[in-house]
């Protein structure tokens, strides 16, 4: 069983996210961490490997070189191998170019199952897995709250607003996991110390056979024209907490016959 897990590095939740007004891109300069959703995907891959007693878990990431820290964390937690796609030419890649790059990197591994987090904690796109499925022509199930493997297929409980969908898909396929699927483990001290000894491959775009026009800004379909604060809602009323705030809220709502 070969399991590929796509992991991303995102700014730490406590850090203030900032868009660079010059490049119009997210400022990724501050403290960063392994995307929390992807920790669930990795945990699920490790549990599958532990349950079946065999297999290999490879963590795949596209990110600039310093993000190697997050990949090393994935190795410390238990991934067997890491593949890091890093190339200055990738800067400015949008969903399309990112998916294209990851598709190439993942394809090379010939995995039976590809796991992703439901969404990136920075952009909360929750789209990459479908783009990946389209490029790799593979079935995809998202929002997985549980996952069972059977002969040549996977059975997923897909969390929805109204309950669960039970979906089966033949292997190989792509599953994006929700954060309800499991509780990720912490890396053990042995895992931390052993991470450096595990294979950690760094690839550039040429290694994946990607041309300059397929990646970066050239390979992207998104163009950011301008940035602006969300427009203020003209009719909003601000009630300050001065001791009588609750009464004012009730009064306001009653006036409008809302309660």
């Amino acid at each position, binding site marked *: 069983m070969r399991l590929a897990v796509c992991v991303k590095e995102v700014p730490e939740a406590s850090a203030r996210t900032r868009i660079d007004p010059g490049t119009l891109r997210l400022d990724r300069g501050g403290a960063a961490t392994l995307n929390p959703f992807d920790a669930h995907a990795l945990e699920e891959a490790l549990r599958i490997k532990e349950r079946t007693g065999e297999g290999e878990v490879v963590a795949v990431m596209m990110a600039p070189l310093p993000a190697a820290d997050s990949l090393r964390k994935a190795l410390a937690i238990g991934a067997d191998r890491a593949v890091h796609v890093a190339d200055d030419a990738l800067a400015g890649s949008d969903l399309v170019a990112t998916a294209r790059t990851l598709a190439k990197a993942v394809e090379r591994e010939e995995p039976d199952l590809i796991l992703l987090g439901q969404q990136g904690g920075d952009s909360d796109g929750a789209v990459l897995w479908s783009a990946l499925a389209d490029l790799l022509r593979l079935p995809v199930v998202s929002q997985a709250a549980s996952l069972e493997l059977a002969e040549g297929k996977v059975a997923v409980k897909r969390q929805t607003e109204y309950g669960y969908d039970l979906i089966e898909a033949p292997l190989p396929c792509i599953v994006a996991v929700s954060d309800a699927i499991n509780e990720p483990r*912490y890396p*053990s*001290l*042995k895992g931390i*110390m052993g*991470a*450096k000894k595990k294979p950690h491959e760094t690839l550039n775009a040429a290694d994946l056979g990607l041309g300059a026009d397929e990646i970066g800004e050239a390979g992207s379909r998104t163009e950011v024209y301008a940035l602006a604060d969300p427009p203020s809602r003209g009719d909003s009323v601000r009630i300050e907490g001065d001791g009588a705030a609750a009464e004012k809220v009730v009064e306001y709502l009653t006036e409008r016959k809302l309660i």
Partner: protein
Amino acid sequence: MDFDLSDEHELLRTTVRAFAQERIAPVAEELDREHRFPYELVAELAELGLMGIPIPEEYGGAGGDTLSYAIAIEELTRVDSSVAITVAAHTSLGTMPFLLFGSEEQKREWLPELASGRRLAAFGLTEPGAGSDAGATRTHAELRDGEWIVNGSKIFITNAGTDISACVTITARTGDDEISNLIVRNGSPGYEISTPMRKMGWRASDTRELSFRDCAVPEGNLLGPRGAGFKQFLEILDGGRISVAAMGLGLAQGAYDLALAYSREREQFGRPIARFQAIQFALADMATEIEAARGLVYKAAWLKDQVRPFARESAIAKLYTGEVSKRVVDRALQIHGGYGFMDEYAISRLYRDQKVLEIGEGTNEIQRMVIARHLGL
């Protein structure tokens, strides 16, 4: 000269920090209030390899260095001292004697279950009549028909009486002018353990009085050569001081973090109190002393990892962090005003937990004596 930690040390720090924040912080107040030993947390720490950090892998430990150990203890104490001292006493006082002085057979017998954290070990040095003057031990053991017959008592012994405590290593007089270390298995007839002592701080940690009445211990439970006990316990304490120093550092950092956050939130005279220069200066002084403390602790750990003499530096680090943690936690509570005096505020627990850092494993005065001796006085 390189002040950067390695990638491994950084990842260990963020891991233990996350564990302390997510797993310990939510229950710390309750464990303290109920004087409840943190069995579940010890099991989780064992899972992560944190109950035997500096013990080699061949004996079931994690095979980490002293710096890793210090960083882990620092991060645990930042959130809760009871959990941290449970780990530190188990590792430095309970388990280390086996690694340092045990025969190969004793190491194989005891270390795997201790270093993995499945069982805990204690070290019984202090007696009612022998505290700072630990050589004044009165507990004695007499060799009779292939067994040591132990009589005497010990006091303030950490980790001795939990459900998972395996043994205590005690100092005992085995001759007129002779002290030896003996391993006493929990459950040995004649070995009695008091109910948990009630304490001002470290309330979730296990502290007991021990008494030995004609307690028979197999002759083979002698640790190292007969009569080496005095030298052995001094060496154990030298190493243990690094972990207590790491506790002082962690406690100071934790108190500072709480004070910094609180000072930004709390408003008086129409602004956050952090805007008052008096508060800013207090925080600046705290940050300065913590930075100095960290340098001392890491240097002592580094020296030990380089297999170089570290006894002077570990005593300096222990003394300094003991005193810095007192100043920092005192100012940190002051910044909290009346709220800091309330049990719901973590700072009040840190304040109570701090004091013993100036007493355990050698009081401040004893550290000064050790340092003075290294000055050639």
